[in-house]
């Protein structure tokens, strides 16, 4: 084990010390004996030069423990992720948790008709604007518009995001050819390559393909991120019983192998590049073949994955919480999202992703975004706990209470009124029934929808300077001329 424990207050811990050690040793064994398929000639060559046993024909690299340990030593445990506005900067480190919305889908629940339709450019902007307004969501991930040209859709969406939010942006490519343009755009907004490295305004996300495949786009992105000092999220997604072992421990091990291999590929080329462990282990329903996202077993894996990354490697973790298989903002979504946020959250995840997702991350919903924002706020309060000390024990107040009717106006109450933390939810109802009925018997989803409408009509993010927008457009036009 290369790193010592550095968790503050992990309140959920499923795996024993021995179990963590076994997973790490299993990772070393698998990487050295079975190897991993690296679908990138340059990546294979680099591994071979560094001492790995590489078969260029089968593209399998068997990586020895010393290379692995060396790479794990240079991965940073904490770093800054910047927002376009410095007030939105994030410190990724133990003890801090941030929210990220669920990005990626090209379909959205229409706010008026409640039907699912394709995402359009206006939705990309509205969505990012809403994220900008969300108190407990700190990182914006885009959704992808169908009415944007396919070959430059990712960079067009990135510009839309820079213009619609001043928070940190998590970006994923639709095409490898967009990679250099993404980096140039980030540099423009940051002001310079150095600025970008000091305070990266974007992180990227790429996935290995289980079982045990590192696709070329992942290697290219690892290296580009390394060159620019941009953190990369390694999104390993084995499916238990299908692309990973059916046992939960086995698929956790598979995701670890893919992550550690990605780390080796990254650190050998650019030691010190920030990497974020971002697994999304799916659970296959063996009667339907569905890859479940919100099941209890998924949540156990999420919590265990947090523990593994933090205890074995001291690497920051991005886990889903919320994650639901429900198609609607209903009770199922509420239940799944809650345990899915609590378990990895209380295990110490640094970033909780998924606000706004429905249907296993296939679609987004603005109302769900607000509901999940509330959930994150509730979680943060739950994670913060409360102090037990002489002051908070309030012996003096208790002493006074024996001869008082109540403590409502007691000086202890008044002293702690504003500091004894209460979370004031915006979407939860506590009304008496009659008032609730008179108000229209609104559900949480209804209340969320009405606030979405308000925000959409009135909320404005801090605008991006016009010159910057123009500079971004120039890059897009250049790319478009070549690619569209």
């Amino acid at each position, binding site marked *: 084990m290369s790193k010592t424990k550095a968790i503050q207050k992990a309140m959920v811990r499923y795996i024993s010390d021995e179990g963590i050690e076994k997973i790490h040793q299993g990772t070393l064994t698998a990487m050295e004996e079975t190897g991993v398929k690296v679908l990138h000639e340059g990546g294979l060559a680099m591994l071979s030069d560094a001492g790995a046993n590489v078969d260029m024909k089968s593209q399998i690299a068997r990586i020895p423990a010393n290379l692995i340990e060396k790479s794990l030593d240079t991965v940073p445990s904490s770093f800054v992720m910047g927002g376009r506005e410095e007030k939105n900067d994030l410190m990724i480190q133990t003890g801090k948790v941030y929210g990220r919305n669920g990005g990626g889908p*090209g*379909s959205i629940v229409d706010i008026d008709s409640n039907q699912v339709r*394709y995402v359009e450019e206006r939705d990309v902007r509205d969505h990012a604007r809403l994220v900008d307004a969300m108190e407990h969501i700190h990182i914006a991930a885009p959704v*992808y518009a169908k009415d944007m040209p*396919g070959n430059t859709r990712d960079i067009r969406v990135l510009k839309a995001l820079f213009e619609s939010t001043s928070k940190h942006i998590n970006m994923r490519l*639709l*095409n490898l050819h967009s990679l250099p343009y993404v980096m140039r755009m980030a540099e423009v907004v940051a002001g310079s390559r150095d600025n970008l490295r000091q305070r990266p305004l974007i992180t990227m996300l790429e996935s290995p*393909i289980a079982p045990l*495949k590192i*696709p070329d786009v992942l290697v290219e992105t690892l290296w580009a991120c390394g060159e620019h000092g941009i953190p990369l999220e390694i999104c390993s997604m084995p*499916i238990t*019983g*299908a*692309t990973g072992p*059916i046992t939960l421990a086995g698929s956790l091990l598979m995701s670890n192998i893919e992550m550690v291999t990605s780390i080796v590929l990254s650190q050998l080329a650019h030691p010190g590049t920030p990497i974020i462990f971002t697994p999304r282990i799916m659970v*296959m329903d*063996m*009667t*339907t*073949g*569905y*890859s479940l996202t919100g099941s209890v077993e998924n949540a156990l894996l999420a919590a265990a994955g947090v523990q593994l990354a933090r205890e074995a490697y001291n690497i920051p973790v991005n886990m889903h919480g919320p994650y639901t298989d429900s198609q609607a903002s209903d009770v199922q979504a509420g239940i799944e999202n809650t345990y899915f946020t609590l378990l990895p959250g209380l295990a110490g995840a640094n970033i909780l992703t998924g606000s706004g997702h429905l249907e296993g991350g*296939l679609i987004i919903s603005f109302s769900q975004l607000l509901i999940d924002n509330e959930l994150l706020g509730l979680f943060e309060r739950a994670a913060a706990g409360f102090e037990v000390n002489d002051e908070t024990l309030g012996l003096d107040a208790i002493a006074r209470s024996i001869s008082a009717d109540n403590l409502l106006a007691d000086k202890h109450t008044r002293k702690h009124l504003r500091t004894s933390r209460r979370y004031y939810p915006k979407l939860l109802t506590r009304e008496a029934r009659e008032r609730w009925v008179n108000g229209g018997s609104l559900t949480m989803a209804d209340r969320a929808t009405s606030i979405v409408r308000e925000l959409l009509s009135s909320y404005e993010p801090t605008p991006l300077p016009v010159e910057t927008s123009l500079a971004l457009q120039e890059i897009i036009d250049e790319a478009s001329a070549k690619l569209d």
Partner: protein
Amino acid sequence: MKEELLQKLSQAVVEGEPEEAGELAARALENGLNPLECITDGLTVGIREVGQKFSCGDYFLPELIIGAEAMKAALEVLEPALIGGQEREVIANVVLGTVEGDLHEIGKTLVGTMLTANGFKVTDIGVDKSASEFIAAIKSSEATIVGASALLTTTMNQQRSLIEALEKVGLRQKVKVMVGGAPVTKAFADEIGADGYAEDAISAVDIAIRLADAAA
């Protein structure tokens, strides 16, 4: 003796034993059994039982898959031995593949298993296949249905390209096209002119049956 061998063949499928199924098939031929009879009264009986156990929740996907593999292993021995005009009865020949630029295979593989278990003859060409590779397989297997899978929003367009390619080589009228994959929707399938769209492996069977009927 014949009954015993047929029974054992069927059991090899039910118990998911590909090696044994292959050996039994060879033994059956050595003992002069009619290969077609081995298929209909041995293998098909077995795979039907697997299907029933799956439907009622006794068997799960892994058992369905290994049962289909056992059947396949026996077919590899028996089909070449079919004499003259003998052909095993299949609902239709199907080519399955994941489109170009896409390495995801699980969904497609599950569809293949379900189709095999339900009486289709499936040629799975694998992942990252170009339209011309699909077309070559359609021609060589005389398929009347092709299923194209895509898991990424970026590779979905290859499903459209496949349909265009089929038109270009004059095969579009002869082959029904089904599409699927997580980001694929009915709306998209309709937009690109696909004949069928299945949300999951189980409904893929119903779609394929409908398409086979239409093609007949």
